[in-house]
């Protein structure tokens, strides 16, 4: 019988066929617990993956096409070098705009480290110029040489030095999240296979009787597959709901804690965890079906 027909028959169910295999309390509880625990972990892995994805996009978008020119010069020369650097920037192809940051903006940048009320004007703090690129970009090496000539205290920071590793780290985290979900699915399949094998071995006598009275392999397998699939579905549903509640109770990203407070779902992202229970059921279906047919070939 085809896999599709098997799935359909499993969904519609057969009350009499369900009765031929005796209830197995231990493997039932084991499968339910495994599915619930794995779904719980899968929801967190999914949340991690989505959050790191958002983070990578944010860093990438926020820092792409921007650069900073830092003017470090004696107090009396800062203004002159700033103006010189701005002139160079304005005449550089590939640069859309350039503007010096005001005291308030510089103070805001330093506030997380030094606290509020920082007297910026009395401290030897470099002047920062925010540079926005055009879509085509600019020649960073050429710009550095020109800045060096016109404003010796100007240093160009095009962010690539630290932006790339951050984005790379975020992308790796996203990959790890996806890998974790794949491992969780594989571990779920393995554990359900073990539980199904235990149930099949415990019911060897039942299988012998069923074969004796003319049951086809697909009939016997279905009795086990349906049971394990439904258990995995209900266990995973419970685990998913619990994990979603736990994530909903996490502090919000806007309360200002950085990356960890952003570990959650946003908008339609809350729909993604709902895919986990059907996936767990499919995994259980495949694992039990494979185990059942192998066991049937070995038993008889």
């Amino acid at each position: 019988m085809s896999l599709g027909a098997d799935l359909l028959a499993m969904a519609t169910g057969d009350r009499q066929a369900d009765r031929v295999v005796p209830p197995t309390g231990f493997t039932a509880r084991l499968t339910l617990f495994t599915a619930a625990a794995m779904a719980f972990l899968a929801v967190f892995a999914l949340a991690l993956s989505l959050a790191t994805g958002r983070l990578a996009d944010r860093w990438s978008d926020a820092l792409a096409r921007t650069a900073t020119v830092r003017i470090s010069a004696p107090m009396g020369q800062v203004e002159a070098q700033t103006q010189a650097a701005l002139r160079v920037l304005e005449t550089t192809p590939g640069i859309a705009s350039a503007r010096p940051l005001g005291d308030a903006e510089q103070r805001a940048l330093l506030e997380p480290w030094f606290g509020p009320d920082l007297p910026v004007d009395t401290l030897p703090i470099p002047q920062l110029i925010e540079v926005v690129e055009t879509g085509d970009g600019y020649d960073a090496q050429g710009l550095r040489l020109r800045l060096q000539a016109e404003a010796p205290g100007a240093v160009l920071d095009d962010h690539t030095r630290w932006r790339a590793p951050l984005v790379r780290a975020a992308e790796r985290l996203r990959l790890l999240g996806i890998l974790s979900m794949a491992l969780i699915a594989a571990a779920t399949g393995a554990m359900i296979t073990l539980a199904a094998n235990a149930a099949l071995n415990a019911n060897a006598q039942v299988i012998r009787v069923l074969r004796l009275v003319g049951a086809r392999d697909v009939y016997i397998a279905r009795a086990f597959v349906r049971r394990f699939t439904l258990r995995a579905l209900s266990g995973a549903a419970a685990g998913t709901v619990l994990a979603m509640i736990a994530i909903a109770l996490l502090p919000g990203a806007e309360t200002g804690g950085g990356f960890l407070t952003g570990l959650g779902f946003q908008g339609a992202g809350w729909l993604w965890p709902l895919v986990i229970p059907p996936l767990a059921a499919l995994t259980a279906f495949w694992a039990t079906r494979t185990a059942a047919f192998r066991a049937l070939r070995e038993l008889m």
Partner: protein
Amino acid sequence: MIEFQDVAYSYGGGELLTGIDLSLPQGSFHFLTGPSGAGKTTFLKLCYGELVPSSGRIELFGRDVRGMSRDDIAWLRRRVGVVHQDCQFLDHLPLEENVALPLTVAGRDAGAEAADLKELLAWVGLSKQRGSLPPELSGGERQRAALARAIIMAPEVIVADEPTGNVDWEMSLRLLQLLVELHRMGKTILIATHDINLIRAAKQQTQARVLRIRNRQVQLAGADL
């Protein structure tokens, strides 16, 4: 119906049965006898496709058993009713569901055939025990239940392996009577037994023939049996 052509069966490096040439035609009644360990059960298993011969050819209902798939074997089990000495049941199901099990696994609605099931249970004398679980039944009741289960699909052949092995003489005769009635309905019967008295009792009622396993070969026994 069941044809053996130069059949041999080996297990574990030793030959259990060899050179079997025989035919069990439709409507025949055969006993199979021989000492313990001679291969009676093995021969029966060859007859209902549980085992495949090491060499030679067995045709069941015109089909070579060697070419049968697992699904074909399942189909075959619906045409050959089997009664084992240890009559295995599903202990968590009541007797009537156990007897109806061949209908259930064939996808037929046992509920729709409840009248036939009731009649069958009455015929084997188990009407009162229909709701009992198998462990609650006596040896004789289990044997009759196994016979009822074996014939509920109206098979053409009934194979019984020491069906009277665990019951007293009175119950043995009752079981024999049921099998003789089935034979009169046109069923092909093959019974493995070491009970000579049972064979003699059967021969008084039917044209039963006796097969004997001797020197790993299955031969037609003489008139002394």
